[in-house]
């Protein structure tokens, strides 16, 4: 890649305390290395429990690596910052705020005036289909609607880097497809860099420039592959493309191997 890396992980290891004592529970991440270039859309694919959310937490700055380095533009990440937006695995809306106030939380924290952020906020609310629910409170929305509000909330501050943890997991197939298309459009308009966690191969192939496949625990980057399809993509064209089947087969093969390993258990 000619572009300088925005995010780079170098031989990152992470452990957690075990359930009953302070004794460590074995590596969750072992020697994870990868880079994200400016403007890239990268999907992180892996089985449940392999450490995908852990990686996002390190990049977000919620947690620190035990060994190795997590760098943003070459500088170690120590704390969360607004240049790294995040959409969590579960929507984490604030129940005391209306949908509109939730969505505009970021710009309000950075001291923008309503004139500055409201037009964009209304646009995003419309895009995620919540224009009629701006005055509602989160608990009055369905799970999928809440996740869409959380997406709008993460998009509105135009973060340079967007970390997304299975954001569409709770959506039905139809909404999910619409949100995937919407996400690629928004990614191109606001020129952000995205690290997107998923365990859905089709989703990864539809969205990503590059897919990182993780091994079973302890998590490593097992395979890295370029997604060759030109943009804009449509799912119809994609599934008709012979390369799609080939790629999917390759990924499935790796995923199957890792799944088998995680069921047998980690070798000592």
């Amino acid at each position, binding site marked *: 890649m000619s572009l300088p890396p925005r995010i780079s992980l170098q031989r990152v290891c992470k452990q957690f305390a075990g359930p009953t004592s302070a004794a460590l529970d074995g590596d969750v991440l072992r020697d994870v290395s990868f880079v994200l270039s400016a403007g890239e859309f990268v999907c992180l694919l892996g089985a449940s429990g392999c450490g995908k959310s852990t990686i996002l937490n390190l990049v977000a700055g919620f947690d620190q690596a035990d060994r190795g380095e997590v760098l943003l533009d070459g500088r170690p990440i120590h704390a969360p*910052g607004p240049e790294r937006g995040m959409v969590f695995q579960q929507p984490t809306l604030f129940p005391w705020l209306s949908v509109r106030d939730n969505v505009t939380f970021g710009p309000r924290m950075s001291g923008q005036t309503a004139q500055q952020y409201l037009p964009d906020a209304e646009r995003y609310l419309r895009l*995620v289909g919540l224009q009629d*629910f701006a005055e509602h409170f989160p608990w009055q929305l369905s799970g999928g609607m809440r996740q869409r509000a959380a997406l709008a909330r993460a998009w509105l501050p135009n973060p340079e880097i967007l970390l997304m943890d299975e954001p569409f997991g709770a959506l039905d197939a139809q909404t999910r497809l619409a949100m995937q298309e919407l996400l690629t459009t928004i990614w191109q308009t606001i020129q952000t860099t995205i690290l997107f966690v998923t365990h859905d191969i089709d989703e990864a192939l539809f969205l990503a420039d590059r897919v990182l496949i993780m091994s079973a625990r302890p998590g490593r980057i097992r395979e890295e592959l370029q997604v060759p399809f030109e943009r804009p993509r449509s799912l119809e064209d994609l599934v008709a493309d012979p390369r799609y089947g080939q790629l999917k087969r390759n990924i499935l093969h790796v995923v199957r191997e890792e799944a088998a390993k995680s069921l047998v258990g980690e070798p000592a």
Partner: protein
Amino acid sequence: MRSEAELALLLPQQEAATGKGPREPAAPWRRWKYPLISGTTVTLFVLVWQLSGSLNWVDPLLLPPPSEILRTALELLASGYRQTPLWEHFLTSTARALVAFVVAIVSGVPLGLGMGLSPTLGAALNPFVQFLRPLPKIALIPLVIVWFGIGEGAKFFLIFISSFLSIVVGAAAAVLGVSQARRRAAQTLGANRRQLFLYVVLPNALPELFTSVRLSIGIGWTSLIAAEMVAASSGLGWMVINAGSYLRTDVVLLGIVLLGLTGYFFDWSLVHLQRRFAPWAGMDS
């Protein structure tokens, strides 16, 4: 590539219920069902109580029936109990309690929040708070009399200290109740420490704060009797104790009914304040 407008149309187009508020009013019967059940049991209870007196099942001296209590109430309203009108007993007690509650809330909530936010402050004060909170406040009466004399100060202190301590503990716990996910979401949206406290930790703690204030006011109201045992000559608590020593069970029961109703009213007001200012209590999002 599809335009943004087209993309938005791909989404399922839910429509907000128009013309209705965010919460639909329940059907009339459902709305009144439980109040009606409560009303019925209370009416039945009062009826049986009345019959117990009218039919002489129980000696009216041991358990004066409601009619008797009502007559006592009217009598005390007209001529007072021990030269003090009934409404004055009532107002004296509620005023004592309200002043103590307000001071306890105004000082206890910030102190509790501070203890929750700062582990150092928490560690410094927790031993005292945890020691004093479960202590039966009646045990303090002799000391309180020595310190404050037998004036209003002593009564204020006893009510204040009981509610204050439990507000402090409740507020400290409420601050810690904010989930990691919410905290993190706010941080990725650029909230600094001050904003995190003002716009996330505090609103997140509000429902629990209301609950702990409710509990504390209950506890404070309970210690009214203890407070008015300190050489008072007015107040509902004093009236009950005094009437007891003259076997005026009708006055005792009247006092109990008034104490109970007032406590019930305090709690009811707080529930309504909570619904008004923290309607998201117990709601996930």
